[in-house]
């Protein structure tokens, strides 16, 4: 009987919900459609000294930020259409028996997916409702545009790349750089600085590692020549040339010598202890002194004037002198060049159009995260000898990315405009099945889950702080501690990332979460909802919107109402319900 009426009753609740939004202070700082608009405590507004330094640097580079949206949505739509066309030609032309393209995802699914992908958290109930009621044809593009314009966009992806870098750290102490790296990247992403300029800053970085987030790749590897080399190649080109570090790889074209020629761009990089006031820290420096010193310990404290490839038959000998040479293009720099000359030159060559892997690596990452599967898998393992599931499509999209001056927001806008992105999700395919027939559910990253949890439980961000205002280097706020349980290396194949026991225990039994689930007492948010919404159905809808950014299905609604009937009190029933919603599978996955 209730199929239609439940929709209406849902909408009834919705109007009330929008009203609630405006009275609940905890919700007021979220989202473009809410009235509050004050930025959250962990948003870019907090940026102080490190950001100023970074800005100076960016200003000194020869090209300003990519003009915001200059190319316009029209261009993105055209490119997106061509991407779909190419996929149709090279991937979908011959489908296996029984295979079909997934239909277009519903508006609810699209909005949650887009919000998680861009701002790293669920849309608010008010945003969901406004979106569902919106009848204009371009509402999906506009929603994406709004999310792209938010500071949370920069933070979401800054956290992603922070994890890409620091999950491969050689030394836990380098985590002192992570907050500055997040700030550095958030600002760059929000200003829409081109990816080539951002990559350059990482490659040529110097300075104190607590203050200069762009030192991250070098700091995470303690300045060790071979490891820095491997990571620069992996992160910015998706080429795992370090496999050739010890021997020529049978299935790879890059030779051992080519790895060490690349390493010859980094021998003068050093990471030294330094004090910043009372705080012990490290600095990335150029060590251009010409008298080689022996490395007493295996650390990167001193640079070497040149890089030598170890002789495998005689490890104690000095090895073979390497001339800095970029393996992709064969371009060569002279011996004796200074550190910054070496790194600056490599940055030029690596980000030039002659190097296809630079654009492809970034496009593959973004596509992989947005689609649930990259053209190349794993996302950081590209190369001429790796299988690519849609080479022409990638070639085209990477070419366009390059032509748009590595405009990051343009790329998101474009991918999210494709039909491919907007399809329903299906379970991860098997190797025999055709790729990209559907989108694919992704397990959320720790930061996304944390933000969703805060929103679902109505925990105000102020309460959690983030950083200690007295010490902007502190890195042990609740978000960080949460990541010790829920974090994973975003470069790892996503289907390998499964839930763990401590994660389940935290969501089930955390005293903090359970305090916030209380209908009575100091937590307050659930109590407030129940007081404002006397109708059970309306309150259920509201909880669904807060936790899962969708309305309950008819069957779910019936389960909920039945549960409420069997409980001794309304408060108890809704506590159970809220607990169940944040503990269910869907809460942890992007649709």
């Amino acid at each position: 009987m209730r199929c239609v009426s439940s929709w209406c009753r849902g909408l009834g609740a919705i109007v009330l919900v929008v009203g609630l939004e405006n009275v609940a202070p905890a919700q007021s700082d979220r989202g473009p459609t809410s009235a509050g608009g004050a930025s959250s405590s962990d948003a870019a507004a907090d940026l102080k000294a490190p950001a100023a330094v970074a800005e100076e640097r960016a200003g000194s580079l020869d090209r300003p930020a990519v003009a915001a949206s200059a190319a316009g949505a029209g261009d993105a739509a055209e490119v997106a259409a061509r991407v779909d066309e190419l996929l149709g030609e090279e991937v979908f032309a011959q489908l296996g028996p029984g295979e079909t393209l997934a239909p277009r995802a519903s508006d609810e699914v699209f909005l949650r997916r887009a919000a998680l992908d861009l701002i790293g958290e669920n849309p608010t109930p008010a945003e969901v409702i406004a979106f569902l009621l919106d009848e204009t044809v371009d509402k999906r593009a506009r929603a994406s545009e709004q999310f792209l314009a938010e500071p949370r966009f920069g933070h979401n992806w800054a956290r992603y790349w922070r994890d890409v870098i620091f999950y491969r750290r050689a030394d836990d102490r380098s985590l002192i750089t992570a907050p500055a790296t997040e700030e550095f990247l958030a600002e760059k992403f929000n200003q829409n600085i081109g990816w080539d300029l951002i990559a350059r800053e990482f490659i040529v970085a110097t300075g104190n590692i607590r203050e200069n987030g762009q030192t991250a790749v070098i700091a995470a590897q303690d300045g060790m020549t071979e490891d820095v080399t491997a990571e620069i190649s992996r992160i910015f080109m998706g080429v795992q040339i370090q496999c050739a570090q010890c021997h020529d790889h049978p299935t790879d074209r890059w030779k051992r010598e080519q790895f060490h020629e690349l390493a010859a761009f980094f021998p003068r990089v050093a990471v030294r202890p330094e004090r910043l006031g009372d705080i012990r820290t490290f600095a990335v420096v150029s060590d251009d002194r010409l008298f080689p010193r022996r490395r007493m310990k295996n650390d990167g404290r001193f640079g070497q004037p040149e890089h030598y490839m170890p002789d495998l038959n005689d490890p104690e000998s000095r090895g073979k002198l390497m001339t800095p040479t970029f393996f992709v293009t064969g371009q060569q720099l002279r011996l004796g060049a200074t550190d910054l000359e070496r790194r600056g030159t490599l940055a030029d060559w690596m980000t030039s159009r002659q190097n296809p892997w630079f654009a492809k690596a970034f496009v593959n990452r973004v596509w992989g995260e947005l689609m649930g599967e990259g053209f190349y898998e794993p996302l950081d393992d590209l190369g001429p000898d790796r299988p690519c599931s849609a080479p022409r499509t990638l070639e085209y999209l990477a070419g366009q990315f390059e032509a748009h001056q590595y405009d990051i927001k343009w790329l998101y806008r474009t991918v999210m405009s494709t039909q491919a992105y907007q399809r329903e999700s299906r379970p991860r395919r098997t190797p025999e099945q055709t790729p990209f027939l559907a989108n694919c559910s992704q397990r959320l990253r720790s930061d996304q889950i944390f933000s969703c949890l805060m929103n679902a439980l109505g925990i105000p961000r102020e309460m959690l702080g983030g950083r200690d205002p007295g010490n902007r280097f502190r890195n042990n706020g609740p978000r960080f501690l949460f990541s010790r349980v829920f974090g994973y290396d975003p470069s790892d194949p996503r289907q390998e990332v499964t839930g763990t026991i401590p994660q389940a225990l935290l969501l089930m039994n955390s005293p903090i979460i359970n305090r916030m689930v209380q209908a009575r007492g100091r937590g307050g948010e659930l109590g407030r909802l129940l007081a404002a919404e006397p109708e059970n159905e309306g309150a259920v809808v509201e909880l669904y919107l807060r936790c899962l950014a969708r309305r309950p299905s008819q069957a779910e609604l019936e389960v909920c109402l039945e549960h409420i009937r069997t409980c001794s009190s309304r408060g108890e029933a809704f506590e159970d319900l809220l607990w169940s919603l944040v503990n269910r599978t869907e809460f942890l996955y992007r649709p």
Partner: protein
Amino acid sequence: MSLQLAHHVHAAVNRWGVIGRRHFLRNLAAGAASLGLVDRLALQADELRRQGKACILLWMQGGPSQFETWDPKPGHGNGGETKAIDTSVPGIQVAENLPRLAAVAHELAIIRSMSTREGNHQRASFLMHTAHVPVASVQYPAMGSVVWKELGSPDCQLPSFVRVGRRFPNSSDGGLLGTDYNAFLVPQAGRLPENVQLTTDQARFQRRLALIDRLEAATTGAEAELVASHRGLYRKASQMVLSPQMKAFDLGQEPDAVRQRYGESEFAAGCLLARRLVEAGVVFVEVGLGNWDTHDNNFERSRDLTAQLDQPFACLLQDLRERGLLDRTLVVWMGEFGRTPRINPRAGRDHYPRAFSAVLAGSGIRGGQVIGRTSAGGEDVVDRPVSAQDLFRTVYAALGIDADKENMSSIGRPIKIVEGGAVVQEALA
């Protein structure tokens, strides 16, 4: 298409009984070969699981002085003020700081010839937890995660790798084996780990779990596999929380006499907890004792630390022996490196990876012996150097684990549990 993609995917039941996907062999040929190997090892591993082997690692964070513990040099200037005492084994002496351990020397294989190249805490700590130096491209798993994977029993409702203590920097974790092999943390022995106590009564907890099930059953969607895996995980997590085995974490269950026998310190509580966890079926427990980084005031600080170490360690061995557990439990004592022979102007000793000590006891180990020898002043290993890889091979051999077994890195590169090195045969029983 599948040949071109060259991925091999197969579903597997992991130790929690959860269906998950394990995959990634770059080509089918390699896949077939590796699967054969995996199958063979799986058979072997089942045999080992039946034997119930376990390992306790006593981790001495900071790098303990060998001179003040297992390799005293009383006649030499480098030995400082530390004297040597006789042990239960004629001809073997240890530092006077370890009287109780001296009395159980017949259980110990003391390796005095450890030698590595890593003199910084971070790299050395990683090396001595994984048998590999840290590199960006491969996330080597910790010893505990390897042992969990190889020996963990599906019957154990507790996580099979537990770390007891507050901080284990640069000690690795599940790494390429996956986050589900990460250590389960118990920051303080005697206190329950985080989030293992229900916040409601049990009936209501069950009701909530049932509500999740009903809601998920009512959801139409294509994510049945994810839901099944999530449900399996929650079943395991709630089984664990409600399991009688959880009592293992509660030291209050032990008679006072036993607690007193181990001693008062936090490390003592950690050793007692380790024994209780092994009894409950946990296969790897790491107990930390920190602050061995004695750059100044080495002798007094070492005395203080050995006082925390001596009684619990000795008691752990005796207790395991009396309970018949020592035959199936390997106990490893080590830190990331040793300390300099030269005593610095602050009466301290600095980092010294070139010659230091480690100790093995219990399962598979021939006790009552010293392996290797350092020079009169302790500067060099003069007999039978033992590398980190040698030590790990010996540990794995004692546990019956094939150290040449390969696991796949995230980009499908086969990585041996230990690369290089050789078993220290004389250490084995």
